[in-house]
């Protein structure tokens, strides 16, 4: 198995949302929580639109890629919704 160790400090001033999200999680589970949140972030950044299932807080939630479609993708999506009407 390949991997590397990351030691990070999360401060309330620099990352208030992440700080809040991790504060509520027991310290021994925080690393896993960071991995989970990173996976969600990567899905959004990649803009694949693929529905990813993430296990969070002990229950299964479908997480939809919320990344805004690029202009052309948005136009094609709009055209598709118009297509029957025109």
């Amino acid at each position, binding site marked *: 198995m390949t991997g590397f160790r990351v030691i990070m400090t999360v401060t309330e001033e620099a990352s208030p949302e992440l700080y809040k999200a991790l504060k509520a999680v027991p310290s021994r589970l925080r690393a896993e929580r960071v991995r989970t949140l990173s996976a969600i972030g990567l899905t959004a950044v990649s803009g694949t639109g693929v529905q990813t299932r993430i296990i969070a807080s002990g229950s299964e939630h479908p997480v939809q890629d919320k990344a*805004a*479609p*690029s*202009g*052309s993708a*948005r*136009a*094609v999506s*709009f*055209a*598709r*919704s*118009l*297509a029957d*009407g*025109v």
Partner: protein
Amino acid sequence: MNILGIDIGYSNLKLAFSKSGEKPKTILRPAGAAPADRFGNRFDGKVQADFLHVLVGDEEFVAGVSPDRAEMWTRSLHADYASSHSYKALFHAGLLLSEMDMIDTLVTGLPVSQYLDENRKKVLVEQMQGTHQVTPKRAVTVENVKVVPQPIGGLLDYIAQEDADIEDARVLVIDPGFFSVDWVVIAHKDLHRQSSGTSLNASSVVLEEASRLIAKDHGSAVNTETLENAIRSGKSTVLVLGQRVDLAPYIEQAAQTVGPVVLEAIQKSLRIESRMPDLVVLVGGGATFFRDAVQNTFDKLKVVTPKDAVYSNARGFWLMGNTL
């Protein structure tokens, strides 16, 4: 899958084409087309490099040139343009320029009033679908054809360029072309047919008015094709009896006369709408002629125009082709 968006206008032929998933290539050519024997020859006997030679039935046509290059040939400036030989020649020129032998999806537009005529739409689909002998040695097959109201292309192009979220907006799209000014209202992704329409007080009328004004000041009129060519090639002056005349003041004055007439027709058709549009998208080759009139009429609304508005419809048709 090969996709072609083709906008056969009265003034320009515009194309956007590519395989699906690839960036489209765009081409603009003047929309002149006439039988080959109506064109003069070069003094050295060589072939004119800018001529596109295509077949219409058995007859050889030259297409994609300035409309005033042909002799003894009347330009088609009427509502039945799509059934004219010039239109067919330009269509074949478009197929030739697309560099494809097989087109899976072709999308084109009609003026709104013609689009609402189901029969006219059906005839155009039948005309464009199938295998076309565009030159003696070249045939191009078109599998599927979709015809949309002209301004829809411009709207899709605007959404793509600006990544605009207009899903819940009421949008008025105005498309001033050479022969007609078309407009549509789109609200919640529905085309409001009753509020959409066509006016014939289009760019050609602006140019005729400009020509009349030039004649008044300089003693001789300039034909609309000369003005059209000057604008197409970005020239700011035209020659009138040997004297250089600045075009801008005359175009501006002509647009001030013609613009409000069109805007009145648009406002009239919007009366049945329950509320005003949220946004006005101004597209097409004649967008600059009508911009002031549109902004003055809808002074509280944002009026936007996509970049390179002359290509808007073709690029939007290509986007529509990606959905089929």
